[in-house]
């Protein structure tokens, strides 16, 4: 990357398969670049301190808090936001479908972060990553149950308290994804 001014950088961002070349103040977080510069307002700013998870996006397939990542440091990573989860024809991602079916929200502000985080959870479980629940019990590859989902999703707060249906939706999507893989 070349510096135009000391505190500014030309940054190439890959978001939902598209490339954006932006001149950004180095202080711009990925979240602000997505929302304010690119215009993808699905990712939400809740606490802006990495405590609530509303800003969760996938960076190279892994969930991350976009409020704590400077855009300049995310150069060339493949970023997926909630807008990039559905099929191009509008078919919802299994997690989006499950959140609708289970009414897994009230105000909806935390929902994009919940859904992106859950997408990360499904990938992590498929890769056999342990959690504080499974590590404590010495289990192998992760089989998601309610306790696992609650632990793995604990970085996403919902002030409406829709947790019961969020857990159900994530479990539905996990089951649907597993069927797809084994079918």
């Amino acid at each position: 990357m070349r510096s135009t001014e000391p505190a500014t950088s030309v940054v190439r961002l890959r978001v939902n398969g598209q490339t954006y070349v932006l001149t950004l103040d180095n202080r711009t977080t990925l979240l602000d670049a997505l929302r304010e510069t690119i215009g993808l307002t699905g990712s939400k700013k809740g606490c802006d301190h990495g405590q609530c998870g509303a800003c969760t996006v996938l960076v190279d397939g892994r969930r991350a808090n976009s409020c704590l990542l400077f855009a300049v440091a995310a150069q060339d990573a493949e970023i997926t936001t909630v807008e990039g989860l559905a099929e191009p024809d509008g078919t919802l991602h299994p997690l989006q479908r499950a959140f609708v079916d289970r009414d897994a929200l009230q105000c909806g502000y935390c929902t994009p972060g919940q859904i992106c985080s859950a997408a990360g959870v499904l990938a992590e479980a498929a890769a056999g990553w342990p959690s504080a629940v499974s590590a404590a019990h010495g289990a192998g590859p992760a089989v998601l149950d309610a306790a696992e989902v609650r632990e793995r999703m604990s970085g996403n707060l919902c002030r409406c308290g829709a947790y019961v249906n969020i857990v159900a939706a994530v479990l539905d999507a996990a089951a649907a994804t597993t069927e797809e893989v084994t079918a």
Partner: protein
Amino acid sequence: MQPFRYQQPADAAGAVATVAATDGAVFLGGGTNLVDLMKLGVEAPGLLVDVTRLPMDRIEQADGGGLRIGAGVRNSDLAADSRVLAEYPVLSQALLAGASGQLRNMATVGGNLLQRTRCLYFQDITKPCNKRRPGTGCPARSGDHRNLAILGASEHCIATHTSDMAVALTALGAVVHVHGAEGARSTSLDELYRLPGDEPNRDTTLARGDLITAVEVAPLGVARYSAYRKVRDRASYAFAVASVAAALDVADGTVRDVRLALGAVAPVPWRARRAEQALVGQPATEESFRSAIDAELTGAAPLRDNAFKVPLVSNVVTAVLSQLAGRAR
């Protein structure tokens, strides 16, 4: 937030040279703590040297066994590593007890070691704080100190170290590899961290420009029988009120080897050497465990609102060691 310049160095030597030579330059890892501190105004670096693209992201077999863990390895990758799960379960458990899935994906090993305290006064720039602004005083001593130190504090600072990972690494006797202006060296984790004394602004013994490149854990039989237990105010995604990293080897009902470190009770991850020494050769019973940790805690100097941590630590250590003794039999 203050404006800052941003660089991606070509190699570790370049990163070290830049930070050593530039006023207000700091390394940027996963940013989960540093970026937050910049938003809070606690940190205002003029230059970020991003070390996440340096080749420090591998977990390798170390010469002579053990594991050499690159400083850029993300916390989630380390927690899921099969060698860590099998040979150093305490380390995986400590990592998984910390932060959230998102943060563990971002946070690096080096950054985790160097995270700053979450003491409320340190994070609030409208308040005095000897760690943030030396000489301004410590309101925590008479203020909100429910979750601050009972061991190792000074009259100038009672902040705690808040890493879970570092507590496990301390129990394991980890060594830190550092690249400095004078070249590469290594130091024990014990020597990396320093007690506050009258310089609470200095968390570590690192010099400006020193870059942690890797952490190494030696082959350690006792570590196979190890566990991390964290007590906190909610079931997940919260800093510890107290935590314990323990490893225990029992033969014929007698303690053959033990490692014990405490978290969230001191300005550093606290290796409980006094308790370890008291236990070796003793019967592996609840009474021995209780008496050993209580000997360690005779050095505790709790304040008005954190005296509960003394019996809490005693109970948790006794429970974890008893659990490990039960498993070893």
